[in-house]
């Protein structure tokens, strides 16, 4: 039988400050960094010295989630990262190219591995349990959540899983997105992202970690109901896909009180969202978030984070609203995301 899965703690590091939801930070560039917490609160200086931002953000966000849930050693650590430790990758790559493969030092190579963050969290906690890292573009965090979901379906005896996503900016590799049309050109204001009818999006970095558990804590945010990942969906099939997913969970469209969409202002692919906005979810509260934190492979962590907060507090910041509906009590939230028309995911969360 399928057990109930609870989200007992959440953490977020993004380009937005965590306690100023109603007055979001404006950015006038297509690439903007995350606001760093004081990493020394979470990581010893001697180990901090060689860490890239992804590692620092990852460990810090993981520790925030663990502290909130009062867990020292989770039964599994499952990480998603679309582009991994790009800063170290870039550093090592430049060194070996510039120095014609001579006198290359290993530190950045060691840290370039995609499972560096997951491994470093384990090392930091001394946690020898199950540890996996997924890297499937915009379905990276979702893959990690899917694995987490499987852990609880199996009779593995696992009680608490630390799961999260992290991605960082790097000077050159992120900049390459300007060359292949992934980023907007010209004048940009992040908060006006959805007003623009142009190609490309804005990007940033961040980390989100969660404690999922079969045991509901007093602090519990939401129930994690279901998740689905599909590599590609024909636009005309998107409605059917969503209906099918809800049907499997014995829910109709009416049962969804809010839908969080991964809209990123890229008019070449945003139709996946507008189809849903204009049809199935026409009378549902629609929320967006990528104008706040940018779009990167694990940006959907922010959607999960926000949905959790909404389900727990019942309050919704107006900056997220894509339509003007005023729903009653929020019971079920659906999160839908894709990037460049691929790696689609649906996540269903419910109030507890």
């Amino acid at each position, binding site marked *: 039988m399928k057990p109930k899965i609870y989200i007992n703690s959440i953490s977020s590091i993004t380009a937005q400050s965590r306690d100023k939801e109603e007055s979001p930070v404006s950015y006038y560039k297509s690439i903007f960094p995350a606001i760093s917490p004081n990493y020394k609160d979470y990581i010893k200086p001697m180990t901090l010295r060689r860490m890239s931002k992804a590692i620092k953000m990852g460990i810090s966000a993981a520790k925030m989630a663990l502290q909130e849930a009062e867990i020292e050693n989770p039964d599994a650590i499952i990480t998603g990262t679309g582009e991994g430790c790009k800063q170290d990758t870039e550093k090592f790559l430049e060194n070996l190219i510039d120095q014609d493969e001579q006198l290359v030092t290993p530190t950045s*190579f060691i840290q370039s*591995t995609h499972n560096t963050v997951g491994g470093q969290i384990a090392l930091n906690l001394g946690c020898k349990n199950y540890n996996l890292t997924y890297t499937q573009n915009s379905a990276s965090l979702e893959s990690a959540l899917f694995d987490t979901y499987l852990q609880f379906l199996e009779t593995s005896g696992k009680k608490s899983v630390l799961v999260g996503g992290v991605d960082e900016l790097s000077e050159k590799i992120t900049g390459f997105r300007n060359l292949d049309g992934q980023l907007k050109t010209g004048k940009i204001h992040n908060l006006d992202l959805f007003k623009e009818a142009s190609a490309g999006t804005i990007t940033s970095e961040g980390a989100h970690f969660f404690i999922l558990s079969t045991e509901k804590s007093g602090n519990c945010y939401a129930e994690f109901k279901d998740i689905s990942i*599909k*590599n590609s969906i024909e636009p005309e099939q998107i409605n059917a896909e969503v209906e099918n997913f809800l049907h499997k969970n014995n829910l109709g469209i009416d049962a969804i009180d809010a839908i969080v969409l991964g809209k990123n202002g890229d008019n070449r692919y945003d139709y996946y969202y507008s189809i849903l906005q204009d049809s199935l979810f026409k009378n549902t509260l629609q929320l967006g978030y990528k104008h706040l934190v940018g779009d990167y492979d694990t940006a959907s962590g922010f959607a999960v984070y926000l949905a959790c907060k909404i389900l727990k507090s019942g309050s919704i910041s107006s900056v997220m609203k894509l339509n003007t509906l005023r729903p009653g009590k929020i019971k079920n939230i659906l999160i839908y995301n894709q990037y460049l028309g691929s*790696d689609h995911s649906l996540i269903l969360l419910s109030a507890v």
Partner: protein
Amino acid sequence: MNKGVAVTGMGIISAIGNNIEENYRSLLASNSGIGCSEFLKTTHTNIPVAEIKIANETLSKHLNLSKNHSFTRAALLGSLAAKEAIEQAGIKIDDETGFISGTSVGGMDATENHFKEFVAGKADNKRFIRSQHPGFTTEKMAEYFGITGFVSTISTACSSGANAIMLGARMIKAGKLKRVIVGGTDCLTKFTLNGFNALMILSNNPCRAFDEHRNGLNLGEGAAYLVLEAEDILNGKPVLGRLKGYGNANDAFHQTASSENGEGAYLAMQEAIKSAGITPGEIDYINAHGTATKNNDLSESRAIQRIFEAGIPDFSSTKAFTGHSLAAAGALEAVYSLLSLSKQEIYPNLNFSQAMPETGLKPVTEVKQKKLNLVLSNSFGFGGNCTSLIFAKDEA
């Protein structure tokens, strides 16, 4: 009873052959694939590697790709191996067919070739900009086979392929998929060659796993995939073997090095044995990780001693055939484990002459015929990632 998840197809390409049959013949004849690099353009010409001697252009022709395709070498190798597996299993790709691939550096080959152009703002080869990220390589392969459903990539360094196989089996068991193509792919790159070189763990000679005088690993490249299918759709189809158990644990000791007593490896093997519902004594053969670094082989040997105590089963590392193909290693060795089960023979650990004094363990050094029911395959990676898989002969 835990029958294990059915393997109905397998495919492989490595430095010792372009398909299952060629790999098998090389294993029997003790033909190693380790030699000089020809296709990898590196200044380290003195470092031996296990390279697949086929150019990307030729690989693309085998796959009938258009001229301006954006397949990375890992995607090319991966597609060839997966094609063999899919054809053997005779499956039709549908909505309930998943694809889970392990890769460590994905399309780094394309990135390192074009990096300077991109830095200079040249966009001629922009179709390779996203290739650096492992999901890109997986996506190309999914596209090639028309897989639209569950597609994911695992990147846990050298245990990626083994972890992909584990996830596939778990998804079938949980009823999330009917069939799934699982495995791993990695190609030789300057990035990884220089990385391991900087770590000072590459040998200048063919590697000597478990030998007292072992002095490092050889990098290799390759890809291997298995088709796993749910019991209710088998319909009497031949089953090549079964994935009976799996375990993953973290050494949580050091970013790259293994702990002295091999705690992570020990826990992974223990979990695999537990999940298979067997006792250690039932394992007939171990296809060891055995990279031939000082550190890995000692750590793995100690972990094996701790699990099996006095009854250490036959074991060998096949890395001296294929080099260490990183994310693909666990998948390559899954294929070899399945071959061992179907042919009832163990493939040798080449270049071994003297046991390390710390353990005195001696691997199998000649092809050995033996009744084999259960084979354990180990894969360990950076970040302390340790995975063990247990394959069983199908009890028809």
